[in-house]
């Protein structure tokens, strides 16, 4: 069911995530985070979600890494020789408990690729898959939903990006050139 490549990717992503959290040097942490994003992007492709994978690779592994690197250029490297951050036991406990609680929902999910999952049998999904190609004349159903059926949502997203971006630009500009 899970091929060795997928299992290896999962281990890689987990290791990168833990490393990003534990590494003391911020630069090393950013590199681990970038590797984590790349691994997740490949996992998305394995899960037949190339659109999401492309986004993750471009934003998570690409842009975010550059922005993080620019940001830490203003910081200094922590003193001392330790490679890893000390683990706060209480914080670790809270994190593990949260993951455990969320994991209980995993059993309610259908198997990957199951034909009888709600995603595949839902009436809305069926409608999109049956009519999208004829009605919107595009060959990518994801785009058809994004830019035609749910166009208003996408306009909202675009405006959110616009508002957040302009707000950040104004604030950072003020801070940077005060």
């Amino acid at each position, binding site marked *: 069911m899970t091929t060795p490549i997928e299992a290896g990717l999962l*281990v890689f992503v*987990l*290791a*990168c995530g*833990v*490393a990003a959290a*534990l*590494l003391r040097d911020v*630069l*090393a942490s950013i*590199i*681990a985070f970038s*590797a984590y994003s790349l691994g997740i992007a490949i996992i998305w492709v394995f899960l037949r979600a*190339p*659109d999401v*994978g*492309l*986004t993750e690779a*471009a934003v998570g592994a*690409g*842009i975010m890494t*550059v*922005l993080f*690197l*620019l940001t*830490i*250029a*203003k*910081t*200094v*490297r922590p003193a001392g020789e330790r*490679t*890893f951050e000390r683990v706060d036991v209480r914080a670790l406990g809270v994190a593990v408990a949260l993951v455990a609680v969320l994991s209980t929902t995993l059993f309610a999910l259908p198997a990957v690729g199951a034909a009888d999952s709600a995603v595949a049998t839902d009436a809305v999904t069926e409608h999109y898959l049956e009519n999208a190609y004829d009605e*919107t*004349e*595009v*060959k*990518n159903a*994801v*785009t*058809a939903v994004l*830019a*035609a059926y749910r*166009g*208003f949502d*996408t*306009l909202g997203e*675009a*405006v959110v*990006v*616009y508002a957040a*971006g*302009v707000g*950040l*630009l104004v604030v*950072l*500009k*003020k801070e*940077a*050139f005060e």
Partner: protein
Amino acid sequence: MTDDTTDPTTNDGEQDRPTSGEPQESADPVAEKPRESVDSVAEEPRESVDSVAEESAGGDELVAEEPPGPYVESPIIMATVRIITPFVFTLGLFVMFHGADSSGGGFQGGVIVGTVVLMLGIAFGIEVTREWIGPRLPVGLVAVGVLVFLTIGVGSVLLGGDFLEYEEYGIHHASKYGIELVELAIGLIVAGIVTGLFFVIAGGMADSEGDLA
């Protein structure tokens, strides 16, 4: 156990450092203790790299050292960027346009187009690139993108249809071209935001040239 799993990653990180040389230089101008040996062997190049790093990080000595600065930095990075920039730009546009027929779309393509500016900044100096691009272009792109999307969406309402009802425009294949135009608008927004964020975060280290506000 934890150490076992994370150690290889750590080593990878260490090996990655020389390749990601430029960000590294600008990343920690303070903590350069491990590179003492490099200093003693080649003091001059080290110096110039330092000044370039400072400059690309928006340092104060921009005016004094601008002409030689970017060209001392790294011929390899500059040549690479010079060659691949048109291709990356084309790929970004392709992902934007072709998002209608294959995976991709405005968000992804916009990020890739924005990456072109990031690469130029890393290769030729962020301040130089910023002056070349100008402060208004990124914000202008974002505004144009939102306006185009809004116009397409509300335009069909004004013509008597529903929001984003492409058929109202009465063009041949209106839906297809409408969707591609919307993707292009989204791409403009994302590319503008990515570029603007890049410059403004890098500009945080400078104390001059606040000409946008």
